[in-house]
């Protein structure tokens, strides 16, 4: 019945493109009616929504290549999408795109323990990889908070980070090879078999974090790591944010490289304690630190002692070491669901993602406080303190007229504060459409143009994920060009 109805609709519209998609992937793998495509109007960045032309679900590289080739030949804008957990609008179909959803390409193709690599399809969920290899004592290091649902293809597009990238690096440090469908439909393979340092420019490095604007990744070879022998986690409560910040610096200066070093402020604590995974953090403290050390068991105690001493030197109110894996797990669940937990204390929230040199933490936090006062919006701070990656969560109520825009402006002001402190506008969430204008905080028109020239090489027609990442060139550059 369902199929009949769809077919009728198509022929009524005489949309031969939809018919063409049917031929490539099969009728069941195409959505084209608005009502079926509602959840594809945006990703995790919900402020801007647009409808796609169609959503298609290829099952293999060949089908992706055929779809891409068709779009290229017919001048149809298109983009690739994973689980849609992106926070910057990278998968939002601004131009009525054909969305190539990769969620049905979700296989774990091979695991090679001897050579420490695994090959996955782009729709494979991040955490599934670790779960599949943990019985052998291995894991995949990048662990964005959404890892239980986000896909590794999306991680590659965004160069995803996570709490543990302080010690182990972000996605780009763990990608050994990629199979990519180029925007004209050709298939290329870089770093085949996980062989390191393929001769030539570092295309793996360039593709990782290109937010789906250079090609559609259809197969990924990742490095897998052996589980550390031991993990130990410390939770420290502070009455003053400054004391917590100083403890962060002192831990780093002591020559310790923690696996993770996370911070939450009072508003954030209020949120996570109202959320789904409360652990009984006191409400009257100004900040908490979650510090994890891993490695050879024999060396852990020494580092934990040192961390405890640093905390005490910085007037810690209470500090404790996780009693067992269960307690450690609870602390992390509380932290990793932190963004969503803000829903418990605010109708809406906007997550920001600035980065600062870690030594500037106290002053930037103070500026964020000021922004909160100025815009009259509460801002919760949950962040990867160890690498200076801040996540101000701006709490607002979209039912109040004008408040959404105020939240967006406050977010932008936070990013300006980060840029002015010598930092960046995004550490792991990407630019997408959300931070396009903020790119100007850190790059000149010429520097942006240097990047769009690279896009030109890969994606000359600019049909793939158009309108993302880069602001239109400013007037100044256009004038310069006209003069030339």
């Amino acid at each position: 019945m369902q199929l009949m109805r769809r077919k009728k609709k198509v022929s009524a519209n005489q949309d031969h493109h939809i018919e063409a998609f049917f031929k490539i992937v099969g009728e069941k793998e195409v959505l084209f009616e608005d009502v079926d495509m509602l959840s594809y109007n945006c990703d995790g960045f919900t402020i801007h929504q647009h409808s796609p032309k169609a959503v298609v679900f290829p099952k293999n590289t060949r089908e992706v290549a055929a779809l891409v080739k068709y779009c290229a030949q017919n001048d149809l804008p298109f983009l690739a999408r994973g689980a849609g957990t992106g926070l910057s609008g990278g998968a939002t179909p601004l131009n009525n795109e054909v969305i190539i959803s990769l969620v049905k390409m979700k296989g774990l193709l091979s695991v090679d323990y001897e050579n420490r690599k695994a090959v996955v399809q782009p729709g494979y969920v991040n955490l599934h990889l670790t779960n599949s290899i943990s019985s052998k004592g291995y894991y995949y290091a990048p662990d964005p908070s959404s890892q239980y649902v986000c896909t590794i293809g999306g991680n590659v597009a965004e160069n995803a980070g996570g709490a543990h990238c302080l010690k182990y690096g972000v996605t780009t440090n763990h990608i050994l090879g990629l199979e990519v469908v180029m925007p004209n439909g050709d298939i290329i393979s870089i770093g085949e078999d996980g062989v390191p340092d393929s001769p030539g420019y570092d295309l793996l490095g360039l593709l990782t974090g290109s937010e789906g604007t250079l090609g559609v990744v259809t197969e990924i070879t990742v490095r897998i790591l052996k589980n550390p022998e031991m993990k130990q986690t410390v939770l420290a409560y502070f009455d003053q944010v400054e004391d917590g910040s100083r403890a962060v610096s002192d831990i780093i200066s002591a020559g310790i490289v923690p696996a993770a070093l996370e911070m939450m402020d009072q508003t954030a604590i209020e949120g996570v304690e109202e959320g789904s995974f409360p652990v009984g953090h006191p409400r009257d403290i100004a900040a908490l630190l979650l510090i994890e050390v891993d490695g050879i068991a024999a060396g852990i105690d020494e580092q934990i002692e040192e961390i405890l001493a640093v905390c005490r030197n910085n007037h810690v109110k209470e500090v404790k070491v996780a009693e067992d894996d269960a307690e450690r797990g609870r602390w992390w669940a509380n932290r990793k669901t932190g963004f969503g937990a803000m829903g418990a204390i605010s109708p809406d929230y906007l997550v920001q993602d600035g980065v600062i040199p870690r030594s500037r933490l106290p002053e930037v936090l103070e500026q964020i406080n000021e922004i909160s006062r100025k815009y009259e919006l509460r801002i919760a701070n949950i962040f990867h303190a160890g690498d200076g990656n801040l996540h101000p969560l701006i709490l607002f109520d979209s039912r109040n007229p004008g408040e959404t825009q105020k939240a967006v402006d406050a977010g932008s002001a936070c990013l300006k504060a980060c840029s002015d402190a010598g930092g960046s506008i995004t550490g792991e969430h990407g630019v997408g459409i959300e931070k396009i204008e903020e790119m100007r905080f850190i790059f000149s028109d010429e520097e942006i143009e240097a990047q769009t020239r690279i896009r030109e090489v890969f994606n000359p027609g600019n049909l793939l994920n158009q309108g993302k990442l880069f602001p239109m060139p400013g007037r100044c550059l256009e004038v310069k060009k006209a003069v030339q």
Partner: protein
Amino acid sequence: MELEEVVSPQQIMKTAQGHALGNGGEHTVYPETEDEIARILTYASENGKSVSIIGGGTKRGFGGTKDSDDILLSLEKFAGVIEHVPGDMTVTVKPGTVMKDIQEFLAGHNQMISLDPEWPEYATIGGIVASNSSGPKRLKYGSARDHVIGMRVVYPDGRITRTGGKVVKNVAGYDMNKLFVGSMGTLGVISEITLKLRPLPKQEKLVLLSFSKENWEKLRPFTVSFLDSTIEPVSLELMNPALSKKLADIESYTLAVAFEDVESAVAFQENWLVENKPSEMNMTVMEKEEAVSFWKRFTELSPKDPSSSSDIRASVKTGSKNMDVFHLMVEADRLHHESGAAVYGHGGLGHGVAKMYIEGPEDKVITAVKSIRAKAEELGGYAVITHLPLAVRRQISVWGNQPSYFFLLSGIKKQADPEKILNTGRFVGGI
């Protein structure tokens, strides 16, 4: 306009021609500021002059088929630490800074760039980054690409661009750092580099592990089980018997296993080896200073200067699946005994990069190099020739076959350097 109008005449030297490694210039120019680099490149692009870039000269025999370009741009006088923020664990340096100088400076703050490239006493950070150098400790720390967080780069037409930033985590725009790391100076001249740092390890030790000649094949199953343990070596470098003999007087395949951690963790791991290694396996432990001096000799294996005898020298880097380094070292051993050239080799069993150093009569060296490449390609890997005299480089492809996606590489070059003035011919496919 003449070059003398661009920089002061004291910064220009007429260069003797005919260097055995090629990659020279009619004139050598020594800029001391980024602005001077930009002016020199603008002059070159406006006047159709070709430019070759040099730092410490340790990679002069790596790529390129020209004796000389119009200008040899030497960055050796553009050196020094610009900014070091110990609390941020980042350092910003000028490209001509010698690696050892940076490390000594950082050691004063208990920090380091955790890279172990060749010739740290001569190699400049600019050259290390431009060639994406790495050593055995890549197993834990990665290669240059994993350390660079920001750069300033002068394009061939004199424009200056910034890539990345000064923070350790940054995904704003494309990761343009990656474009320039390993690009062999074919896209622009790096004028400033910001790197992330690590604390100096509190303890370090080196353990050499080997079986007797007859039993060497037991090394592979041991390595597999070792890799599968929770021990965290910083290097797991396999040496062929010739190299092991040369460096440690052990004439058998030998594993160089480094540990860097807090004292108790290093002691535990050393002890773990004592308890878990097969009884017939030989184990030599080197304490801190001894370990440092071993690694220093290791970084000096690769030829950097022209040979002074009638024999020639070559070095080859291979990339393969991690454990295929075993096959490559066996090939290196075979060639050492059968090719008529001496072949010393080592490779990382946890990272898949191996290096081989070959010395002997020209024809024998060429045969050995070709055999290594054939072996690497048979294993699904590649071989890049990282040192050879110019005359020999003209007979044999430095980079091997062009990849299927060569159009992307040439497209990138065309965007950055449309006039092809910069380090032309030095890279893959003659880029």
